[in-house]
C-alpha cells in the first residue's frame, strides 16, 4: 500500500489533526513533568501549527537523553512525534498477565503494556510468536516498588526472542524501531525492552553472476549482512573468527562488519580499518563500493586498491591469509583488504583447480592483460612510426588492407575503440530482451560494414576485437575497467610519439603503481618490493603442500600455514616387514 505524499505523512487531513491534538496533550504533559518549558510550549501549539511540530521534532531529535515515559499514552504520542504520525508504525496495546483470578506471584493484576514496531521491517512469524507468548503469559510483571525491574522480569520470563535489550531513552527506542526492532513498553516502567524482529523478504543465496567458476563452491553473497556473515562463518568454524560491528550513515544507519582472524590478522590493521570506517560521516552508505571510496589509501587512482568479491570462499581465503573483510549490510560485494595488483589476476577457482592448469591460465591472464592494455597502441605505433619493425609480408598485408582508409591509424583506432565501448555499455545497461539486437547491429556495423565501406581496415578490427576479448579474461571487474580507461591515453601517446610514447606511458604507469599502497601493503608486492617467498602464488601457483607460509606481502601475526612433509608419498605398508 502506498500513499500519496502529503505533509501529514499520508493520512487524511482531518484524521491527522485529530490525532495530533490528542498527542499534543500527552507530549505536553511529558515535557511539563520533565520541566522543559520550551518543548512544553511547542507541544501545546503542535496541534495548530505544523511549524511548531517541526521545531519540536528538531529539539526532540537532538536531545537524545530524553527518558522513556512511564505512561503508555505519552509513549505513543512521542513515538508518533518521532515517526510523524506515520501509519506504518504500529503501537499494539496488550495486557500482561491473566485477568482477575488466582494469580501467581508477584503481580497482582493485568498490567497494560504496548509493543511498538514497524510491520514493514518485522518478520511477521517471529512477531506473532512473541505477541502470543506475551498474551498468554501467566503472571503479570511486578509493577510498583522496583518498577524498573518489570521490564527485565518480562524479558527474562516471557519473551521468546533470542536477544533483548533494555532501553532507557525514547530516542533509542525510536531508533531501534526504525532498525527493525519491536519495543515493549510497560505502563509504569521507566524502561522499555527492545528485541530484534527484523525480517521480511530477501533474496535467496544464489550463484554469483559476476565471478563465475567451473570448480569450487557456487554460493554467492546476498544483500543481508547476517546471511553473508553466516556464509563466512560456515567456512571458518572457529571462535578466532572475529566480527566487529559498526554503523555507518547518519540516515541509513547501515551495519558494517569488519571480519578477521584474531590470531592471524594484525590488530593494528583491523584498528586502522575500523578507524577509517568510523571516520565516515555521511548521510548514507548503500553499497560497499561507496564505503570503499572513503577508506582507500589513494583516492586518486583508477586501480582498485581494495578487492571486492561476491564469493564467500574468496573472503574466507583472504581471511586465512591475514586480510580483513568489510561486509556492508545491503551489499552482496564484500571488501577484502589489503589487496595487491597481482590479486586482480587471481580467481578463487585457482585454488581449487589443479595447479598446472592454473599456471597456464594465470600466464594467459597476464599476457592478455598486457595485450588488452597495449595492443591497439602498439599497432598504431608500429604502423605509423616504426614500419621497419613489422615483418615485410605482414606489412604488405596491412598496407593492402589500409589502402583507401581515410583516417590516420590513431583516429581509426579511437573510432573502433569507442565503437566497442558503445556496444559494451549498451549491452550492460539495456533491458535484457533487447540483447540480441545490440549484438547483431554491433557486429554488422563494426565488423562487416565498416570494412566494406572502407572506413576502417580489417587488421584494426582484429586488433580491437582481440583487445576487447582479452579484457574479459581478467576475473576482476574493476581491473577490466582500469585497463579500459588506460587504453585511451596510451593510444594517444602512441599516436603522437610512437613506441617512445608507449614507453613513456608505461613508465608513468609503473611509477604510479609503485606509489600505491593498500592498507600499508605495497600494491606491486611481491615484485616491488621483491618478496621471493611470495612468488609461489603470483603468475604461478605452486601446489598447496609446498605453500607453507602465508603471503608475506600481507603481514600477519602468524605466517605459518601448513606443516612440513605434506607432499603425498607412499606410507609404510601395513602387514609387511621392511626396514624401519
Amino acid at each position, binding site marked *: 500500500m502506498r500513499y500519496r505524499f502529503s505533509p501529514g505523512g499520508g493520512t487524511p487531513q482531518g484524521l491527522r489533526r485529530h490525532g495530533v491534538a490528542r498527542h499534543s496533550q500527552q507530549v505536553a504533559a511529558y515535557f511539563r513533568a520533565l520541566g522543559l518549558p520550551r518543548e512544553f510550549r511547542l507541544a501545546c501549539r503542535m496541534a495548530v501549527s505544523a511549524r511548531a511540530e517541526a521545531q519540536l521534532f528538531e529539539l526532540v531529535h537532538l536531545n537524545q537523553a530524553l527518558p522513556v515515559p512511564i505512561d503508555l499514552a505519552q509513549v505513543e504520542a512521542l513515538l508518533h512525534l518521532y515517526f510523524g504520525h506515520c501509519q506504518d508504525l504500529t503501537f499494539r496495546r496488550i495486557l500482561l498477565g491473566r485477568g482477575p483470578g488466582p494469580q501467581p506471584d508477584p503481580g497482582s493484576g493485568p498490567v497494560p503494556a504496548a509493543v511498538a514496531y514497524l510491520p514493514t521491517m518485522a518478520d511477521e512469524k517471529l512477531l506473532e510468536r512473541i505477541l502470543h507468548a506475551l498474551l498468554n503469559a501467566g503472571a503479570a510483571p511486578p509493577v510498583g516498588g522496583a518498577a524498573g525491574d518489570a521490564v527485565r522480569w518480562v524479558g527474562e520470563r516471557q519473551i521468546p526472542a533470542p536477544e533483548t535489550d533494555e532501553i532507557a531513552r525514547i530516542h533509542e527506542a525510536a531508533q531501534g524501531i526504525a532498525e527493525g526492532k519491536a519495543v515493549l513498553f510497560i505502563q509504569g516502567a521507566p524502561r522499555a525492552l527492545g528485541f530484534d524482529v527484523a525480517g521480511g523478504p530477501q533474496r535467496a543465496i544464489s550463484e554469483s553472476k559476476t565471478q563465475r567458476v567451473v570448480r569450487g563452491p557456487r554460493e554467492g553473497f546476498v544483500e543481508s549482512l547476517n546471511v553473508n556473515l553466516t556464509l563466512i562463518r560456515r567456512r571458518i568454524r572457529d571462535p578466532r573468527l572475529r566480527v566487529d560491528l559498526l554503523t555507518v550513515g547518519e540516515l541509513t544507519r547501515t551495519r558494517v562488519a569488519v571480519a578477521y582472524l584474531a590470531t592471524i590478522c594484525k590488530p593494528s590493521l583491523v584498528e586502522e580499518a575500523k578507524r577509517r570506517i568510523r571516520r565516515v560521516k555521511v548521510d548514507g552508505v548503500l553499497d560497499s563500493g561507496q564505503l570503499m571510496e572513503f577508506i582507500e589509501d589513494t583516492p586518486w587512482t583508477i586501480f582498485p586498491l581494495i578487492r571486492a568479491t561476491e564469493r564467500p570462499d574468496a573472503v574466507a581465503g583472504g581471511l586465512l591469509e591475514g586480510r580483513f573483510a568489510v561486509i556492508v549490510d545491503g551489499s552482496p560485494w564484500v571488501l577484502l583488504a589489503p589487496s595487491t595488483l597481482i590479486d586482480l589476476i587471481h580467481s578463487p577457482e585457482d585454488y581449487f583447480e589443479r595447479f598446472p592448469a592454473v599456471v597456464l591460465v594465470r600466464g594467459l591472464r597476464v599476457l592478455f592483460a598486457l595485450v588488452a592494455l597495449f595492443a591497439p597502441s602498439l599497432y598504431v605505433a608500429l604502423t*605509423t612510426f616504426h614500419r621497419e619493425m613489422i615483418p*615485410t609480408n605482414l606489412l*604488405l*598485408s596491412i*598496407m593492402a588492407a589500409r*589502402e583507401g*582508409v581515410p583516417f590516420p591509424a590513431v583516429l581509426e583506432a579511437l573510432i573502433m575503440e569507442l565503437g566497442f565501448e558503445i556496444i559494451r555499455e549498451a549491452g550492460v545497461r539495456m533491458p535484457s530482451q533487447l540483447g540480441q539486437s545490440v549484438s547483431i547491429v554491433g557486429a554488422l556495423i563494426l565488423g562487416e560494414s565498416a570494412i566494406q565501406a*572502407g572506413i576502417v581496415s580489417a587488421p584494426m578490427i582484429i586488433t580491437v576485437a582481440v583487445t576487447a576479448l582479452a579484457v574479459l579474461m581478467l576475473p576482476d571487474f574493476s581491473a577490466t575497467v582500469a585497463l579500459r580507461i588506460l587504453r585511451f591515453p596510451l593510444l594517444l601517446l602512441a599516436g603522437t*610519439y610512437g613506441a617512445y610514447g608507449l614507453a613513456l606511458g608505461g613508465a*608513468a604507469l609503473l611509477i604510479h603503481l609503485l606509489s600505491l599502497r593498500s592498507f600499508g601493503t605495497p600494491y606491486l608486492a611481491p615484485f616491488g618490493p621483491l618478496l621471493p617467498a611470495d612468488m609461489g602464488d603470483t603468475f604461478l601457483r605452486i601446489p598447496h603442500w609446498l605453500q607453507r607460509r602465508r603471503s608475506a606481502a600481507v603481514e600477519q601475526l602468524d605466517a605459518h600455514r601448513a606443516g612440513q612433509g605434506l607432499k603425498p608419498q607412499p606410507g609404510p605398508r601395513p602387514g609387511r616387514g621392511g626396514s624401519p
Partner: protein
Amino acid sequence: MRRAIALLLLLPLLTGCWSRRELNDTALVIALGIDLVEEGVYEVTLAVAGSGAAGGGKGQQGGESLPSRIVVSGQGRSFAGVLRDIELRLPRRINLTHTLIVVVGERLAEQGLGNTLDFILRAPEFRLQGNIMMVRGGSVRTLLETEPIMESLQTKALSEIAHARVGLEMRLWEFFSARATTYRTPMLPVVDLIQNPDTGPEGQRYAAKLGGAVLLRNDRVIEYLDAREVRAIKWLRGHGREGVLTVPCGEEPGQEDVSFHILQAGRRIRPTLQGGRPAFTVSLTGRLRVTEIQCTRPLMQHEVHEQLVRRAEEELHNLIVRVIEKLQAAEADPLSFGEQVRALYPAVWRQLGERRWGETWRETPVTVSVDLRLQTTGLMSNPL
C-alpha cells in the same frame, strides 16, 4: 611523485629519428637496383610494393588483379639525386626500411662500384640484413620486372632462394664489412637472367636463377665462380648442409652415379705457423644420406659403401682444393683466412702487413682433409 611527473613531462622534448607517417602515404621499396649507364651516370631502379603485393588478400575493388609492384627508375650522377628525382614522380614518400634486396648491375660491378653504395650505409632507414646480389645477362630493371614464380614479389622469391641455402647468401652487412678491410674479399652472388624459360607466366622472356658468384677486389669484379664452386665456398663458410654430392657408383667409375644428400656438414679452418709463415689446415666433416643410386651394387656391404663414400670424399677434396687454388691465384680471400691469422698471430700479421695479405695468401700452403660418413641409405637398403 611531483618530481616524477615533472620528469615525465620533460621527456617528450627529447629528439629521435622517427616521424609519423601513415601507411597510405608511404611507397614501400622492396628492391633497389643500381647500374651504370655511361661513365658517371647511374640508373637507380626501385621496385615499390603495390596493392596486390600482399598476395592472398583481395584488393578493395575485387575482381581485377592489382599490380604487385611498380618499377620506377631514374638516371643521374648520384644515388640521392636520383631518389629525389623519382620521388617527384611518386605520389608517396619513399620508404627504404623494407628493402630486402639490393641488385647491382653487371656493368657497374665490372667498372667498379666506387662509392655508389655509400648512401645505403649512411641512410638510417636502411637495414643491413638485406641481400645484395649482381644481375648477369640483362639489366637490373629487367630483373625487377620479371614476374616471379609462386611468389608475388621478385624480392621475396630471390631472398627465399638465397635463404633456402641453395645459392650463396650475402647480406649487406657482410658485404660492407668485407669491403671495409683491405684483406677480405667481398663477394657478390650472381643472379642469371635466363632467356625463354619454360617456367614463369606465359609470354615472359626471362626468369631469374641464382647461380654463381663474383669476387671483387676493392670495388670491381676480378673473378667469376660457377655454381659448383659456390657450393664449395658455401661449405667453407659453414653452410654445407642441404647440398648434393654425385660420384660414379660402378666398381670401376663409369656412366652410373650415386648421389649423396648432405645431412650435416662441418668445417674447421685452422691457421698454424710454419717457419714464421702462416699455413692452414682445412678439415671438412659431413654425414651423408643416399638419395639415389643407379647401379645395383649391394650398398649394405661395408666395402661397397665405404668405396662410394671414399669417392665422395675424394670428389669434395678435389673441388675444395681447386677452389682454394683459384682464390689464391686471384689473391682473393672471401673466406676470412686472413682474419684468423690476424686474430691468432697478431705479431706475424703485423710483420706480414695487412695490405700485402693478398700476396702472402697466394703462397700460403693449405692442407685439406675431408671426412665423410654415411649415416643412412634412405628408406631402402640395397638397390632392387
